């Protein structure tokens, strides 16, 4: 998207002389932009349908509610998008999202009904959770980049191991009585909106800028598109790949903190099953599983669309037992639609 947005302004302000090519350029830009904004019409349609189904839909409270419930998973989508662009994948994000706050809670929650050990003061919870995220990312990077193991299998293994560790330290129970520092991100309001929404939007904005306008961001596309060419262009591919994988896990840890804060607990199943929706949102949003293609804005519209549909279904009174089946169908329909509009096979 950055390319295309800037292209728009550039073409608009370009001096004459190139007028003969303006039409062509303009056409190309509009086309490129369209691809990026492919989901916007769908989002508008859902908003209208939602409003018809139930006038509550477009009320601020409801919209904030949608944004807040999606904020944690949206961060996973952000992380996964970065990783997919470099042509890797990380399935373990959903377990990281549970384990990182889980370890923090285990260490700081006092022994007793809260199931903790009470080894550290409450203020340590946030740094501990983030450090766990970084550590998990570093392990993934070590396996995938340094030892050259297959990322899908490595992170599948990690997904199971990390989930198992969380179940182990929690005894399959839920940590609660969390310290205030852990509740902060999930409960505080900034300027009339929950902090988690702000964090989510801010991080997406940062990611859009980094991916579109920094050489680091562009190197992600180069690596995902043709890693040999990226190497030949002097990009330190291993370093970039490691940074991306570690950042992904760190973001998952942050998402975990936000979710635990909002729910005021860490369940041993926290994040379980999220990764499927995360992949679906990224692919619907135009991110290629083959690397090198996709934008952060597209990924954001992908997850937004999924949550809006879910919200509309709930407001329409669809029984909760059916939501999951409908969710799956929506993912498939969205994929088919983007295949038709995108014109190219999704691999």
């Amino acid at each position, binding site marked *: 998207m950055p390319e295309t947005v800037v292209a728009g302004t550039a073409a608009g302000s370009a001096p004459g002389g190139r007028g003969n090519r303006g039409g062509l350029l303009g056409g190309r830009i509009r086309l490129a932009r369209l691809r990026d904004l492919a989901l916007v019409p769908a989002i508008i349609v859902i908003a209208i349908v939602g409003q018809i189904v139930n006038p509550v839909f477009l009320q601020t409270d409801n919209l904030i509610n949608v944004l807040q419930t999606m904020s944690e998973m949206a961060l996973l989508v952000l992380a996964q998008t970065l990783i997919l662009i470099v042509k890797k994948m990380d399935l373990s994000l959903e377990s990281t999202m549970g384990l990182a706050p889980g370890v923090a809670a285990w260490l700081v929650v006092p022994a007793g009904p809260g199931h903790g050990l009470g080894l550290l003061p409450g203020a340590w919870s946030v740094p501990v959770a983030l450090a766990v995220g970084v550590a998990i990312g570093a392990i993934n990077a070590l396996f995938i980049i340094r030892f050259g193991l297959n990322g899908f299998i490595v992170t599948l293994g990690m997904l199971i191991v990390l989930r198992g560790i969380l179940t182990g330290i929690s005894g399959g129970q839920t940590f609660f009585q969390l310290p205030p520092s852990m509740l902060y991100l999930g409960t505080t309001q900034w300027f009339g909106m929950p902090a988690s929404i702000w964090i989510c939007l801010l991080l997406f904005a940062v990611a859009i800028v980094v991916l579109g306008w920094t050489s680091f961001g562009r190197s992600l596309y180069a690596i995902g598109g043709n890693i*040999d060419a990226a190497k030949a262009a002097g990009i330190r591919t291993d370093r970039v790949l490691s940074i991306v994988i570690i950042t992904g896990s760190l973001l998952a840890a942050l998402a975990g903190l936000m979710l635990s804060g909002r729910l005021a607990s860490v369940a041993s199943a926290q994040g379980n099953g999220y990764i499927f929706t995360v992949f679906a949102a990224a692919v619907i949003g135009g991110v290629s599983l083959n690397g090198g293609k996709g934008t952060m804005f597209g990924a954001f519209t992908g997850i937004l669309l999924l949550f809006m549909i879910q919200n509309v279904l709930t407001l329409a009174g669809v029984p909760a037992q059916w939501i999951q089946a409908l969710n799956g169908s929506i993912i498939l329909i969205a994929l088919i639609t983007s295949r038709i509009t995108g014109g190219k096979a999704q691999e």
Partner: protein
Amino acid sequence: MRDMGTAPPVAEATGVTKRFGSTVALDQAKIAVMPGETHALVGRNGAGKSTLVAILTGLAAPDEGTVSFGGRPAPRLTERNAWRRRVACVYQKSTIIPELTVAENLFLNRYDRGRGGLISWRTLRRKARELLETWSVDVDVQAAAGDLNVEQRQFVEIARALSFGARFVILDEPTAQLDAAAISRLFDRVRDLQQQGVTFLYISHHLPEIYDICGTVTVFRDARHILTAPVAGLSRAELVAAMTGEAALAGQHARGAPAPADEAVALGVERLALAGAYQDVSLQVRAGEIVGLAGAANSGRTEVAESVAGLRAADTGTVTIGGRRPHPGSVPAALAAGVGFVPQDRHHQGFVPEMSIADNGTLTIPERLGRFGFIGKAQRDELALSMIENLAIKTPGPGLPVSGLSGGNQQKVVMARALANDPRLLVLINPTAGVDVRSKEFLLGKVGEAAGSGTGVLIASDELDDLRMCDRVLVMFQGRMTAEMAGDWNDHELVAAMEGVDLDA
């Protein structure tokens, strides 16, 4: 050797030796490329050309010997930017990133920063346009690089190479995927650039091109430097002799008596048409006859051959193979009717690189390897060994992955597979593309043998050497059959017909 008064060579390697394990890739090899010349580097597969390119571009360090640019020693291997200012290489394999725009590919990882350290796309695009204009490359900088054709891609890569400041460019088999018109445009470009002071090292299997564009030629054989000489003073026979180490095979393509006209028809094609590819194509190949299907890259010849082999289904018309009419567009049906097929691009359709020679060679004949869908290892290896022997494939054994073979030997595996089911009809598309001189002779010899034993052969190619052995050549131009030539055509006539030029007009 050279006059002391002239400028030092743009690039020079002397006494270079490189070993990979027990194999010696280069043995005291040398090359000196003088400023402003276009210098050809030829040699059979395995002669050490790729290793020399890797050493000249700083991707590998020689075990012995020195490399210098303009008389000064080469930079250290880690200084990529210093290397890029001295030498650039346009590889056969693309080094562009298809998802990114042309502009971004040109300035990958050396972006212009604008406000706040962010990339200024406007400046980038402007610089890209200027760069392409400087070297007269007519490509839209905002197009996705993946949408460029091979020719445009090469021009963009050359422009990118020059933008680093390098005035010495290595072209590695640049014409392998181009049609005749694009090749001539590439050569015009090379000559233009040469006049602007760019020096080229030109690597090719295609000897006529070397006479066309190069001033000097260096021949490598078996990891050694054999000769360096002006192209003008070197006959084609001498050049081939230097490459193969033997006297040129005179009269190499002369074939015995053409197949008698009363032989059974191996292939009959009636009024075949496929929208966007070819129209109204009719032809016949008799048993034991070799028929050429000539034409430029977009003439439709490849599509016709692929329709015969079942890779494509024609819209109308019929294909009859040995009296049977296989279901159109079905490869299994064509195989069952007795077609042996060498596809256009061996990397793409020819073989599975990580599978062994034995597996690749027998992919089309699983029914002969065992019953009920099980594959008998012993039978497979026995068949593979006979293929290896029959086609003289250079390999330690049938278990070696095909990716470990040289280009010529890979093509032999593909040919072995085409011959594996004792075909009634052999369909070959560019059977010797990217193959060294010796393997080429060998492959074409095998085709002749097959024809001699009664197989009908259809060769779809624009390579004159492939067509020389044909009993007659059918020429296609823009999707139509435009000419038919008996075996005694001369190069002139055929090329003119392929290009749609009328010599008599």
